């Protein structure tokens, strides 16, 4: 999923390019099946080392069990989750369910009975560090070199959340702060979006409010400020996500976003 546009840089740039290539392929490939449902997560304790284990959830509409382990936010046992993911034909051997990839999980406040089930012969997924991780502070940060041009950084959020996620939002915000320090923009506009139009998923109505959009913008502004960007440089906006906006393989997720626009 694109974190930044229109010009990419560094490793995030590579990710953006990969994503773009995938879009071209998608133009000729059969349309992907996107699942969107609310369910109760189950943890399969595959014990394949630290941060291993499988997260499974059944869609009661089709009766099928899906694997959501690769979501950037993992479920909380005992709380329902909103699942948004693309159905794949990847092997089910690792965890024992249909693999969704990419997949996103939003933890909902509604409770449900949570269960831990044994490995039952499944090896589980061994944890591996993401390709790009936050560097320790003792690693010197290098400011991007010129030429500079206007740039946007996009951060996606889980439903009703403005939480800046470890190893995801953090990276994008730090990249934005470094670019802002280097390019000395005349203004940085941070716009929070929320999907306010209620829709029904698995028999439940879900929606966000403008307060969530505002919180997304303000949280990012606070983070940038703590990374050394003056508040006076920032302008904050929040609004309903346009109904026709869609980016990447998970359209609804792409609408729950905030944009950091660096204006030169």
């Amino acid at each position: 999923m694109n974190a930044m546009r229109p010009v990419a840089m560094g490793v995030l740039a590579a990710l953006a390019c990969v994503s773009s290539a995938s879009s071209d392929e998608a133009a000729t490939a059969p349309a992907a099946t996107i699942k969107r449902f609310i369910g109760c997560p189950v943890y399969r304790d595959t014990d394949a080392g630290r941060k291993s284990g499988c997260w499974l959830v059944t869609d009661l509409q089709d009766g099928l069990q899906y694997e959501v382990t690769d979501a950037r936010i993992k479920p909380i046992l005992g709380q329902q989750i909103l699942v948004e993911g693309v159905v794949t034909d990847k092997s089910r051997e690792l965890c024992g369910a249909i693999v969704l990839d990419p997949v996103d999980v939003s933890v909902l406040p509604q409770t449900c009975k949570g269960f831990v089930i044994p490995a039952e012969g499944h090896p589980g997924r061994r944890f591996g560090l993401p390709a790009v991780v936050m560097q320790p502070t003792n690693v010197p940060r290098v400011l991007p070199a010129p030429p500079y041009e206007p740039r946007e950084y996009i951060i996606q959020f889980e439903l009703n959340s403005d939480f800046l996620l470890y190893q995801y939002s953090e990276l994008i915000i730090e990249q934005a702060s470094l670019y802002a320090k280097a390019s000395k923009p005349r203004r940085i506009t941070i716009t929070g979006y929320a999907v306010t139009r209620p829709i029904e998923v698995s028999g439940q109505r879900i929606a966000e409010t403008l307060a969530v959009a505002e919180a997304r913008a303000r949280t990012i502004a606070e983070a940038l400020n703590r990374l050394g960007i003056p508040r006076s440089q920032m302008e904050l906006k929040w609004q309903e996500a346009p109904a026709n906006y869609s980016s990447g393989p998970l359209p609804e997720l792409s609408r729950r976003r905030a944009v950091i626009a660096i204006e030169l």
Partner: protein
Amino acid sequence: MIYYPTMFRSTMVRSVAAFSGLAFSAIALWGIASAATPGAGHIDPERRHADKAPTPATASADYDTSSWRRPGDAQPLPARTTYDNSSGALTTLSIGGPVAALGHPFFTPLGTNGRACVTCHQPSDGMSVSVETIRRQWDATQGKDPLFAPVDGSNCPHLPQGDAASHSLLLQRGLFRIFRPWPPRAADGSTIEPQFSIEVVRDPTGCNTHPLYGLNSSEPTISVYRRPRPVANVKFLTAVGFPFEPKNGLPLPLDTESGLPMSGNLMADGRNGTLKIQAREAMLTHLQATAADEADVRTIVEFENTLYSAQSHDRWGGELTEAGADGGPDRLSQFAAGELQGGPQPIWKEFQPWRTLPAPKAGENAEQRAFRESVARGANSFATKTFLIWDAAGITSMGFGNPVRNTCAFCHNMQRTGLDVAPGQVDLGTTNEPFANPAPELPLFKLTCKEGSRPHPHLGRVVYTQDPGYALTTGRCTDIGKITIQQMRALAARAPYFSNGSAKSIREIVDFYDRRYSIGYSEQEKQDLVNLMSVL
């Protein structure tokens, strides 16, 4: 199939739409810029609270000064001092050389109650103070030592101060009273609108319901009871390993004085982000000073930065720098702070050489060898034995999932000290029901989250706790019972453990984790971990 207990989750049967106005971070609800920034805003009300407490005359008595530094004593602090303890010996270094104590603000009573910083931060006790030392001081001075000052060395200042029962939490659990203004104060002193109401369910000390000192007094105050943290090895405490504080989802707040990121590893409830602020608060509250002199604050902080304290000798294992090991405070002082453990660089690698000791020689001390091997096994277990970590808000609510399989080193991941490189607070369950050890001698609070606020991620909207912890600083429901991770050095010299002294021994720490996370340690594994922790 294991049924996952949900009994302590409040029922949340509203539709998702009903929660749609719920902004998850603090921004829209309580103003993150103020509330999430540890600052000095809470100190004024705490100082006024301290001013209410009497300061009776204290007695000077003849007692063993080899392991107790009395405020105002002229005896210099040597560059190196070694103190015996039940596990062996601890060494405290002053790497700046000997320190003239006479007139030094760390060793001088700065307030009205006769205490100095050193009263509760003794070099013999790893720069904390053990309950054993506390009891010895009580016996030696018949309770007249400034250590037992009514302000926080007794269960509550209104109690009869000559009576040991009035100091029972200090004498039995090593706990000092920590008084926090309610509602919480932001860094600028403004009031934070808390996300929860607080009721006193149990008040065995009488302080939380007292008309002068309690929640309904003219300056509402919550009294909780905590162990003093060591003021040694502080470069590890103040190291900023990563720019973000991932459990809070934000970069570390900036110190308004220096412009640098604050520490996320100071104070049980994270209320002070720098050593300077901590020193000011301590002077005005624990020492009951009328003002905090900035030159004194600077001198204290500079001195604290020179102190290293660690176990240096074990009664079974011998010198902790022998046979390739890198224990003790000397090497500790030389290591870089803030380094993340992992992979080929596991935590406590300083004891790795004891895993592969050379073949025994004739006449070798078999007990010593067995102990060293046990320490090495403990270090290995600490870094590699995985178990399911449940309901530990902070760590299981930041995206890793709940449960998450990991090791002790998941949280205790900073090389050499077991602090958290990516700092923040975790609800381990030492203070919150249902996991906290029963403690009828401690207060119990009922916290009810208000409508529209995000509940505690694992305990729901109503939480019973002995100490709300970080939530007393932020006012957030999600922070109830979260306590800042502690360093693991000098443990043998400063029992009891956990912020509320609920583990009397290192073994009880291990037992708590074993029960809390159903780890299933064998007896040998437990002993290995105990031996490891006793040599840190």
